[in-house]
């Protein structure tokens, strides 16, 4: 037996020991090779009479196994697989057999009559935990704080397909298992022991020995579900009183939370419901069928690609221009200690970067530092941070009023008001203190960087660094290259964003850049609906139900209706429209100027807010000015409104591609999900067009919407060209591809 990813030895007592150790990788994943090896050693254990039992452990310090290999999985997802012409029945059989192979093997291992114990010194996630669950006994390390277990498949649109949906509920009961599988949150060794997911805890140096000892002491091990008279903890739906109620509530809670947008989670529920009512062998077959059903959905491919592969790539600098040395940040200055500046200072200090926080008065600067003090205090009081580390973090932030303190900074983030003159003044003052190599960054969400760079004496070093609020919670930073911005500056800025542990996307200059510009279309479509007389509750509910984090009116309240009014007036003016005569402008002006309903900050906008700033109810008088013409929303209308919301945003994204604002499909997807919460089940705006629709049907739908509702939906030439050529965004705008060209 020749294995590539496991070592395999048999000791004097006949106990085999398989050590999982994928060569050349820091972490074990269940690659195709690894699965083949598991199949091979399972045969060996089952058939070799000299082997009395098996211990499985890992040769990696990083842990046992992180689960499936998502690179391989992503390639297979979203399609029916084989392109060879076969009958439907043959294709389905081949798909089932391939999908069932690991399940079949693990079940063989579980029932071979020899004891199998697993030593878990580090993390075991997804398929890693599923392999462990197929053993009869699990020993976990009690001295590794990084150890975690979990079945996170649902987070990326998949379901555990190696027995996880069958063994976990049989082990811990349906009620306990469902949230773990549906939400994919991980849990630690203590909790695993308490639930019965592992049987014993031991120091990591002893787990293998403990596992061996158990194998020796239990020569005829069986899984609990193979014992006569086995009962699922908490009962089986329709067999035990109340057990069906667990499913009823799980269905409702999932439906309430995810609006039925995630096929994987529905299928997880079905795996558990259908599988738990039959013997485990049948349950495993049911699981495999649902696994394949899930894997073939476009949502699975989109989610694996964006939420895992692309997110991981970008957060490791996947969009960084090559050929520049890593930029070390020994000191970073933040100018402007308002909400954004204070947050930026905090994330820098948290990442260990000495930070100067500049404001016009010491009082303001200290107030900015208070933001960090409060966050540290909270973390210390919750035991997430030691006082010592908290103090060290705070010591890294130097509040000041003097630009002398900016001297020697490797990078400056200017985070003052969105005022071009003020920003120009600060750029000049800061640059006087900076060396030739230092980066001058401006945190702005709308002002074109090329314009701001005019104030700079080194426009090649000038760049936009757009943070999102609240900075400590938002994982994305939008980096904007101006016309003159050099590639070296871009590389340095990406290094900075990675250093503060955020995910960077890189875009080119344009009004509103990428995120603000595209996001704005969502709220504007909501305003269009309002103007058409669609009942506000319909606008808000459909917005949330199609996967957006908030209703369009609630978002407008958060941004400020006064801001929306300003933008609407400016846009109307720019387009030469009659500002006074425009109905939308009049409506917003009435809200802001007559009614004082400027949004959440005033406690009243489209919504009335409670003292905690949470929306209580839609303001009943919204429709004083606009007559409600549509007050029912049957499924056909809901679908239409859903398409209007999502297609409108996607069309704007396509325009950004055409205009060269964005040049890498990954930036578009990750930006849309992380910056403005675009329906994550779609994989982001580009994947929504690519996979959920397909470019050709998307163009047809957008044309239909444009004919019906206006040119804002009209597909651009780029989309038509892509449709004609059968290209997707990931073909046309592949990772890193056009960036150098577009930036030049």
């Amino acid at each position, binding site marked *: 037996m020749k294995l590539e990813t496991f070592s395999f030895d048999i000791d004097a007592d006949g106990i085999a020991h398989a050590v999982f150790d994928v060569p050349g990788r820091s972490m074990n994943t269940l690659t195709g090779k690894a699965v083949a090896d598991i199949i091979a050693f399972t045969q060996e254990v089952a058939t070799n009479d000299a082997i009395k039992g098996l211990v499985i452990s890992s040769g990696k310090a990083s842990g046992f196994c992180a689960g499936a290999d998502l690179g391989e999985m992503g390639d297979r997802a979203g399609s029916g697989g084989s392109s060879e012409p076969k009958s439907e029945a043959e294709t389905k059989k081949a798909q089932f057999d391939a999908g069932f192979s690991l399940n079949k093997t693990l079940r063989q291992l579980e029932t071979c009559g020899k004891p199998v114990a697993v030593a878990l010194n580090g993390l075991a996630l997804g398929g890693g935990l599923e392999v462990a669950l197929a053993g009869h006994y699990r020993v976990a390390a009690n001295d590794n704080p990084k150890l975690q277990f979990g079945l996170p498949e649902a987070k990326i649109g998949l379901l555990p397909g190696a027995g996880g949906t069958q063994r976990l509920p049989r082990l811990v009961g349906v009620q306990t298992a469902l949230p773990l599988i549906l939400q994919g949150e991980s849990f630690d060794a203590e909790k695993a022991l308490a639930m019965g997911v592992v049987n014993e805890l031991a120091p990591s140096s002893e787990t293998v020995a403990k596992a061996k000892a158990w194998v020796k002491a239990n020569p005829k091990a069986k899984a609990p579900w193979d014992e006569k008279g086995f009962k699922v903890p908490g009962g089986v*739906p*329709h067999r035990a009183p109340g057990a*069906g109620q667990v*499913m*009823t*509530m*799980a*269905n*409702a*809670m*999932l*439906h*309430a*939370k995810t*609006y*039925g947008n995630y096929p994987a989670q*529905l299928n997880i*529920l*079905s795996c558990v*419901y*259908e599988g738990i009512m039959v013997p485990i062998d049948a349950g495993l077959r049911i699981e495999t069928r649902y696994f394949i059903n899930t894997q073939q959905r476009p949502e699975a491919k989109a989610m694996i690609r964006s939420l895992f592969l692309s997110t991981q790539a970008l957060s490791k600098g996947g969009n960084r221009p090559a050929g520049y040395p890593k930029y070390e940040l020994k000191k970073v200055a933040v100018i402007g200690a308002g909400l954004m500046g204070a947050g930026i200072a905090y994330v820098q200090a948290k990442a260990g970067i000495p930070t100067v926080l500049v404001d016009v008065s010491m009082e303001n600067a200290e107030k900015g530092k208070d933001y960090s003090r409060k966050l540290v205090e909270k973390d210390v009081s919750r035991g997430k941070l030691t006082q010592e580390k908290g103090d060290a973090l705070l010591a890294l932030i130097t509040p000041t009023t003097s630009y002398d303190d900016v001297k020697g900074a490797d990078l400056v983030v200017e985070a003052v008001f969105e005022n071009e003159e003020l920003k120009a003044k600060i750029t000049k003052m800061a640059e006087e203190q900076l060396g030739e190599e230092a980066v001058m960054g401006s945190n702005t969400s709308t002002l074109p960087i090329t314009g701001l760079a005019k104030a700079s004496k080194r426009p090649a070093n000038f760049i936009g660094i757009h943070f999102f609020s609240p900075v400590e919670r938002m994982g994305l930073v939008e980096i904007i290259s101006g016309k003159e911005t050099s590639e070296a500056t871009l590389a340095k800025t990406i290094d900075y964003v990675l250093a503060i542990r955020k995910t960077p996307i890189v875009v080119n200059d344009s009004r509103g850049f990428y995120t603000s510009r595209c996001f704005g279309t969502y709220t504007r479509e909501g305003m269009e609906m309002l103007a058409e007389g669609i*009942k*506000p*509750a*319909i606008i*808000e*509910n*459909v917005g949330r*139900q199609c996967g957006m984090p908030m209703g369009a009116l609630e978002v407008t309240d958060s941004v400020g209706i006064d801001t929306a009014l300003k933008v609407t007036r400016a846009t109307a003016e720019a387009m030469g429209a009659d500002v006074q005569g425009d109905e939308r402008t009049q409506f917003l002006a009435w809200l802001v100027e007559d009614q004082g309903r400027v949004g959440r900050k005033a406690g009243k906008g489209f919504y009335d807010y409670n003292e905690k700033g949470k929306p209580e*109810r*839609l303001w009943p008088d919204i429709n004083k000015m606009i007559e409600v013409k549509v*007050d*029912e*929303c049957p*499924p056909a209308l*809901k679908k239409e409104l859903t398409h209007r919301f999502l297609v409108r945003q996607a069309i704007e994204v396509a325009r950004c591609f055409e205009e060269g604002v964005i040049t890498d499909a990954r930036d578009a997807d990750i930006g849309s999900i992380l910056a403005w919460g675009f329906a994550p089940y779609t994989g982001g705006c580009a994947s929504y067009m690519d996979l959920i629709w397909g470019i050709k049907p998307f163009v047809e739908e957008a044309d239909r919407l444009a004919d019906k509702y206006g040119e804002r939906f009209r597909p651009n030439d780029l989309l038509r060209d892509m449709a004609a050529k059968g290209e997707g965004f990931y073909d046309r705008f592949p990772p890193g591809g056009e960036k150098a060209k577009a930036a030049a």
Partner: protein
Amino acid sequence: MNEAYVYDAVRTPRGKGKSSGSLHEITALSLGTQVLQAIRDRNELDTAMVDDVVFGCVSPVGEQGGDIARIAVLNADYADTTAGVQVDRFCASGLEACNMAASKVMTGEADMAIGGGVESMSRVPMGAAGGAWSSDPQIAIKSYFSPQGVGADTIATKWGFSRDDVDAFAVESQKRAARAWKEGRFAKSIVPVKDQMGGIRLDHDEHMRPEADMQSLAALQPSFLGMGAMGFDEVIKQRYPELEKINHVHHAGNSSGIVDGASAVLFGTKEMGERFGMKPRARIRAMASIGSEPGIMLTGPTDVSLKALKKAGMNPEDIDLYELNEAFASVVLLMMHNLNIPHDKMNVNGGAIAMGHPLGATGGMLMGTMVDELERSGKETALITLCVGAGMGTATIIERV
């Protein structure tokens, strides 16, 4: 096609559907048996001429399982040749059983058949039969499954029935039921339930609260607020995005009561009546069932009534008396609103809010109530209907003869 005539209708009083209820000590089989014996004895039936007994039962498991209709036939000492079948159309099971019995007469399958139903909710709790709808994710999510009470509250929210509206309706139901009992309007149909010694166990509907008023009802907490908050409000809003939030107005005082009881209605051809000297009391004019949107679940009565009216060639105003099961107050208010039915034509003797809703038995009870009331008031036509789980409605139009 034969005409199907109603020759008689009986029902038990309704006992509170809990362990302290008077009928908790009486088996479901005994309830079913007693109505079958009563209808036989009152009419001196030759049971060999009764072809079939169709009983509604919504929780046909345990002592109510295994075709309770046939088992009750045997226990009532009917002829061995009388068949029995149990049907389940949720809350309309009893009316569906009557419609099936009438259909058998109309098609000639049977010359005489009995419809009705039995439900001991104190002994076999609601939901005991399980079912896929709420628990199987594939259908629960697709069809926006929500508990009936959330559906009833959704009706109230969507059509603007306030807590005062539904409470006022409930108070009136109690008043009407109390008056009907006082004036003996149910006397013709009521068969007191006997105990194991042959003594009278219950001779009146014991769920009623004639003293209920707006103040006492106002003190009751909404029953479905918690269920709604656990997720069902968000679920139902996905089917009705026009609703900002669900106004939970229903509670124990304006919803149907949980009770035990049984009913039986005798159908036959004209010839059978002549042969046994029975006077027909009513004639079936039309019957219908329909499916409606399942999430809100309880809007079927309007559509099924219109369907039955169309089959009968009638308009809503041609009906003298409407009897719609008071599953929840909003259900009745909605049908009155939709078909423009004045309250003095609707549930004139109260309904399930006052007297209770013994699921499988109710349809037969409502039919009997209407036959009695047409005779008492000298009116001509009545429409009986119920809202039904999973989004359905069943209706029957009868005419006094």
